[in-house]
């Protein structure tokens, strides 16, 4: 059984936000909504200062709290481990945002156009207004993945810090990287068993 997962190489990430942009372009999210973020951390004191970047997105947990707690079944886990969502079922309880330990779920409160002249053709194509008042999150670009492509962020990353593959296949690139580099999961102590591994 396939279990899709991702590795994020913290040594390779340069914080260019290309993945953030790729995600935005792929999902057509409205202003202020980011399914993928790159957090920055500055450590040390002058002159010994280090800046590091930590990209975050939905962790596609094996035991996803959003799937369990959403009363209207907006979120569901596929057999391949990808947690998908259906905004047409969302009625706006927002309990998903309270239970997700990774702050991975965005709530689209109000959709405003990017440009003052109103919604552009591409924004109308994305039909974001129908998503107003609903939750949204990263779905590993499941439509791309099922077509044999990589998620948009993985495809775009210029330093190849992001890798995508089958965690259950010991010969996959992600499995090898996790083993070789000692990949770790964020908040593993919570028992959600995320499918995203960070490579230190």
């Amino acid at each position: 059984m396939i279990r899709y997962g991702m590795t994020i190489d913290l040594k390779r990430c340069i914080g260019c936000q290309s993945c953030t942009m790729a995600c935005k372009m792929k999902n057509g999210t409205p202003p202020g909504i980011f399914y993928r973020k790159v957090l920055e951390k500055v450590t040390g004191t002058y002159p010994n200062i280090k800046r590091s970047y930590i990209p975050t997105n939905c962790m596609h947990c094996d035991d996803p709290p959003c799937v369990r707690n959403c009363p209207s079944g907006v979120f569901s886990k596929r057999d391949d481990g990808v947690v998908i969502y259906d905004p047409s079922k969302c009625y706006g309880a927002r309990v998903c945002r309270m239970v997700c330990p990774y702050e991975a779920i965005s709530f689209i409160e109000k959709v405003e156009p990017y440009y003052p002249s109103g919604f552009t053709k591409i924004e109308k194509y994305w039909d974001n207004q129908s998503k107003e008042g609903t939750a949204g999150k990263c779905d590993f670009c499941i439509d791309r993945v099922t077509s044999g492509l990589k998620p948009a962020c993985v495809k775009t990353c210029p330093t190849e810090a992001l890798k995508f593959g089958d965690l259950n296949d010991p010969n996959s690139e992600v499995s090898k990287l996790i083993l070789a580099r000692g990949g770790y999961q964020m908040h593993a102590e919570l028992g959600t068993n995320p499918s995203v591994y960070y490579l230190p």
Partner: protein
Amino acid sequence: MISNEATKRVEALPAYTRLIPERQEITSKYNVQTDWKIVEVLSFYLGGVGTGLYLLSQVFDYVIGLIVGYLLVVVCKNGAHLLASSKPFRAMGVLRKPGTSWISRGAYSIFIFAVLGLADIAFRTGMATTENAMLVSVVSILTAMAAFFIMAYVGFVFAEARNIGFWNSPIIPVLIISYSFCMGYALFLVLAPFTANQFDFPALARQFLLTLAATTLLIFILLTVVKRMTKSAQQAASMLITGKYSLMFGFGVIIAGLLVPICIVGYYLANAAAASGSLLSIAGILTIIGGLLFEMCLISAGVYRPIVDAD
């Protein structure tokens, strides 16, 4: 070096040009949830008061209390939920996941309460009659169970919130049940003087005092336990004790909402012969206000667990 003019030009650019999020530095800053606001507070609060009053009114066979409790839950609580929802016309979808979601389970109990509560009130007021005494008893018991479940599920919704350390505690459901009974007694004592029913007020006052004391104790236990919980929970507790909400929590909830009513009820019991019954109503009003402030504090102190830094 960027010139001042260049900086001004960049700052003057409209927001739509900033497609990339502003720098999100990982610091020890704790963010507070902003998704649940006053309408959600009201829905949880009205459910607690309404079910508390309904259950007590069942015990004391107090019809006005039953009707007020029923309306608070079915009309006001549900109305607040619909008001809080961004897509109220999809609200029936809430019934999809009773197996895992506490909100879904709560919705089912509200549905059962709405139907059976109406029958219970009809039987008790004589609007509906049946010769089958068993049926009346079953309806009454099932309504009471549904009311208790409505009272309790809110606490479990909070306790399931893994991202919010302060709520993610097993004490929260017990505290919410206790507070609901407390507010139920409070509203009962406010409404009771306006009816012709004869109640044993000293006995009611003793029970009210017991729930007030239990609730106060549970709040102190929660605040004590928080010190051993996550950093975000400690942050939430410090917001309530010494921070932004200290006045609302310290004065509104603890002093005016619990300790003063305890003193008033204690005084009433010590001087039952001479003391006026309106003292109990005053204690009740203070407790009801304190209960609302408690729910506001609980929601406002929903501090998120930091995403990256260890908690």
